[in-house]
């Protein structure tokens, strides 16, 4: 029998650990001058260094070090006065040297924290996620598995390797274990990754596009009986490529662990892969014997020893911290707590701010993004940022409504059209012929037609039965294909039938 989430949290306490890999957005790779542009033709962004050719040597990208220090500072870490690169030795065809240059016992940043907030039925709750380390390393190449049914590694006949991604700078941010989140573990995990992503974006050090893999999360989950001291065995779930998946993966693993534990079985310490379609995890191929990475200091590189002046210079360049920014925007836009939380949950803060900066009224901008646009996004199961509508489009639509060129109803159709890929708001208006009918003679002609079609209704209104006006207004709106301003139609209709306009629409 499948356990419910409630069953799990009634008995067990989850303990989280999160490892986030961030691809930095430097122009060139970590150890060579090859471009880091995404999506290039295979093996066009490679050189002797990132192909691991005999004789080639790495040299560290200065910007990558600075970005790592910025990340550490933004996460309240100590910056190590002396830090080194090490070699992590293991064989894999996507890793050209068969070792990864990484940082082992001397990472660049240590001991930080990030406070995350989540919105719960009990109000806003705050959790402190402690950061163990931030370190630099290099990405691997990409393999394409050919043959076999699934395009997956298993059952493939052979693989094709593209090393464009090999050597792209990565920063790995590792939390300490996060106990005490209780039933909120999935939300805390998601909120941590979301807030981390906001910080990274505000620092300008990464594109943080989860769908392109420039931000990747591994979620470690273990359970212990409530009140127990000892930690349970953890699983490490990889391949978690969206915020929503982070939450689903943690929840799913909690349930899976609890089912095993309830049956008296053991949780295996292993790597698991998140399946986007099912929301479940699948076991990675378990290794027969444990790897021994044989770390040792990378002899081709010299230590990184940032002095105080360098660190201070970087500290001064830090942008406004996202939590401060959130507080500022909430106040400036006068957003109630609940709605602020909804906006954060929908990951809409940046996009709303952009829309506001383009001249839209904050309340209107928020209304569109969290209303109609979110509805469409939910229906199609994507994030609002992935829709083909931009802050610029929304700002234009808000302006057109304000000017009276569009009604709210028409504006919704424009939004739909833009999202459907019909072009800019103006193009949608033109091609769909969406225009407020403000020509009063045209409106009057429509009103006359409605009265002629429903004489008894008109008579009722003349006799003071104002609620009957709705039917005629509806007919006029239908006649004008919704392009009339309903309030104005009402005014004109009642005046025409000699009645006062008593109800404000």
């Amino acid at each position, binding site marked *: 029998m499948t356990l419910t989430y409630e069953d799990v949290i009634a008995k067990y306490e989850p303990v989280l650990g999160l490892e986030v890999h961030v691809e930095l957005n*430097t*122009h*060139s790779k970590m150890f*060579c*001058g*090859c*471009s880091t542009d995404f999506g290039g*033709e*295979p*093996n*066009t*962004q*490679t*050189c*002797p260094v990132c*192909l691991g050719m005999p004789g080639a040597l790495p*040299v*560290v*990208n*200065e*910007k*990558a*070090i600075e970005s790592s220090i910025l990340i550490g500072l933004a996460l309240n870490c100590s910056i190590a006065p*002396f830090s080194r690169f090490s070699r992590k030795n293991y*064989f*894999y*065809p*996507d890793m050209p040297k068969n070792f990864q240059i990484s940082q082992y016992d001397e990472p660049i940043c240590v001991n930080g924290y990030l406070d995350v907030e989540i919105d719960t039925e009990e109000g806003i709750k705050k959790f402190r996620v402690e950061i163990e380390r931030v370190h630099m390393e290099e990405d*691997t190449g990409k*393999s*394409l*598995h050919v043959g076999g049914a699934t395009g*997956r*590694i*298993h059952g*493939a*006949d*052979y*693989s*094709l*390797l*593209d*090393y464009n991604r090999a050597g792209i700078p990565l920063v790995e941010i590792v939390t300490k274990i996060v106990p005490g989140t209780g039933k909120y573990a999935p939300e805390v995990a998601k909120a941590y990754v979301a807030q981390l992503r906001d910080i990274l974006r505000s620092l300008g050090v990464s594109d943080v596009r989860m769908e392109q893999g420039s931000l990747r999360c591994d979620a470690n989950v273990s359970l212990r009986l409530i009140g127990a001291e000892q930690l349970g065995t953890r699983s490490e779930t990889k391949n978690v490529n969206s915020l929503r998946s982070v939450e689903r993966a943690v929840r799913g693993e909690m349930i899976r662990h609890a089912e095993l534990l309830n049956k008296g079985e053991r949780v295996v310490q292993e*790597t698991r*892969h998140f399946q986007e379609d099912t929301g479940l995890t699948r076991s*990675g*191929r378990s*290794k027969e*014997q444990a790897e*021994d990475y*044989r770390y040792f*200091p990378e*002899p081709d*590189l*010299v*230590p*990184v*020893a*940032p002095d105080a002046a360098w660190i201070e210079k970087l500290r001064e360049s830090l942008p406004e911290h996202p939590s401060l920014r959130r507080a500022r925007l909430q106040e400036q836009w006068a957003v109630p707590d609940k709605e602020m939380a909804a906006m954060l949950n929908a990951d809409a803060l940046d996009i709303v701010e952009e829309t506001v900066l383009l001249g839209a009224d904050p309340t209107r901008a928020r209304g569109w993004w969290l209303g109609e646009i979110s509805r469409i996004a939910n229906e199609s199961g994507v994030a609002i940022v992935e829709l083909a509508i931009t802050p610029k489009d929304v700002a234009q639509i808000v302006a057109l409504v304000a000017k009276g060129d569009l009604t709210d109803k028409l504006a919704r159709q424009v939004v739909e059209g833009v999202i459907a890929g019909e072009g800019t708001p103006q193009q949608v208006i033109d091609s769909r012929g969406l225009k407020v009918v403000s020509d009063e003679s045209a409106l009057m002609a429509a009103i006359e037609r409605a009265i002629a079609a429903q004489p008894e209704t008109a008579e009722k209104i003349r006799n003071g039965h104002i609620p009957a006006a709705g039917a005629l207004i509806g007919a006029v709106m239908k006649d004008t294909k919704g392009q009339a301003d309903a309030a104005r139609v009402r005014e004109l209709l009642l005046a025409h039938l000699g009645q006062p306009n008593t109800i404000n629409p």
Partner: protein
Amino acid sequence: MSQLSRSDVANLARLARIDMTDAELDHLATEMDVILAAVARVQEVATPEIAPTSHPIPIHNVTRPDVVSASLTPEAALSGAPAQEDNRFRVPQILGEEA
């Protein structure tokens, strides 16, 4: 006393990705014993208070500016490839963990 058994050497060969016959493993296990006995002398003087040296010349913070330089052409990059297809390196099926 023998320090390394055949299976120890086999495990090292596995880590180092070198196929070895049992005869080779046995031979190497014997040789390793002799060599390890000789090199273990370092432990006589390597006391805890001595700092290790990994770089003979003590320099630090050697970096390059974040500037893109010319890459190889795919033809040059793949010029030594034992097998290739569509400008990619073609390799036998990978029996590993899915990356």
